[in-house]
């Protein structure tokens, strides 16, 4: 369990997140991809705090802020899915070619 191994795991998670977000059609699954990326970022943040930060409390605050970002992203994402659905009667990324109007 060294810094490099943990960072490799974080890289794998972020990679899966990117693949998931780009490949899925439904909004909700796309958001899961973004959540996966933030998950990798949190792991990387924790790793840097533990191995290079020497336990500096500011490192932990950064990770907590990352968690808050995830909460914000998810709730706004769902609200957007509902709002877009009302405007366009669609919840697949295919159907929305442009958000104008």
């Amino acid at each position, binding site marked *: 369990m060294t810094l490099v191994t943990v960072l490799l795991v974080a890289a794998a998670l972020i990679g899966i997140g990117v693949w998931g977000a780009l490949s899925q059609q439904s909004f909700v*699954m796309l958001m899961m991809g973004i959540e996966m990326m933030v998950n990798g970022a949190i792991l990387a943040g924790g790793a840097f705090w533990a191995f290079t930060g020497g336990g500096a409390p500011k490192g932990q605050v950064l990770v907590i802020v990352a968690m808050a970002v995830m909460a914000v992203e998810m709730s706004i994402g769902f609200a957007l899915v509902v709002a877009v659905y009302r405007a366009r009667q669609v919840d697949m990324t295919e159907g929305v070619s442009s958000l104008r109007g």
Partner: protein
Amino acid sequence: MTLAFVVFAAAAVWTGYRVFRTDSMVRASFLLLASFLNVGAILVLMLAEYLGTALLFMMTVEMVVMALFMVMFMMNPAGLNPMEMVHQPRFAAAAGIGSAAALAAVALFGRFPANPVDPNAATIRALGSELLGGSMLVFESAGVTLLATMVCAVVLSSHRGRFGDGDEGSVAPPLEPGGDHRPEDDLVDDADGGHHMHHGGH
């Protein structure tokens, strides 16, 4: 210790992969939860005890809300129908592998200072005093942002907007992607401008 780390890491990556491969949406959200639990466990292994358990706690509630959202929009009990809704798969896979490789390269070839945290330091006490001490501003602004998010989420998703109903003048998507809307696509165009054409799954 390293065995536990290897197990958690493998489980996190495997459940993360399964999230986008499984048919049932609810299973996908709980697989994502499993991936987060494993990341939380790794954080605890790295002596970031409070972060790990807080991540566990927060993500569980978030995934339960996501599951609730799934069942709301998709009430079939166990996701029996095949859900093959993927577009541009090859490009996505290439982008995924590319970004993973790039980050892995940074991890392997970057030189980082070795300054590990000593195990018996009171990291939680330090975090507590830091949150309410040095980075009080960060902590409070995060709180206020969450409040703003709650208000915004309610406004965005409510039926009645400030300028009339949310679905006013909402039109059905054209049958083939990219085409513009053709009025004859609407089967039934009743008073409230909505339509009742059955469209594909979610």
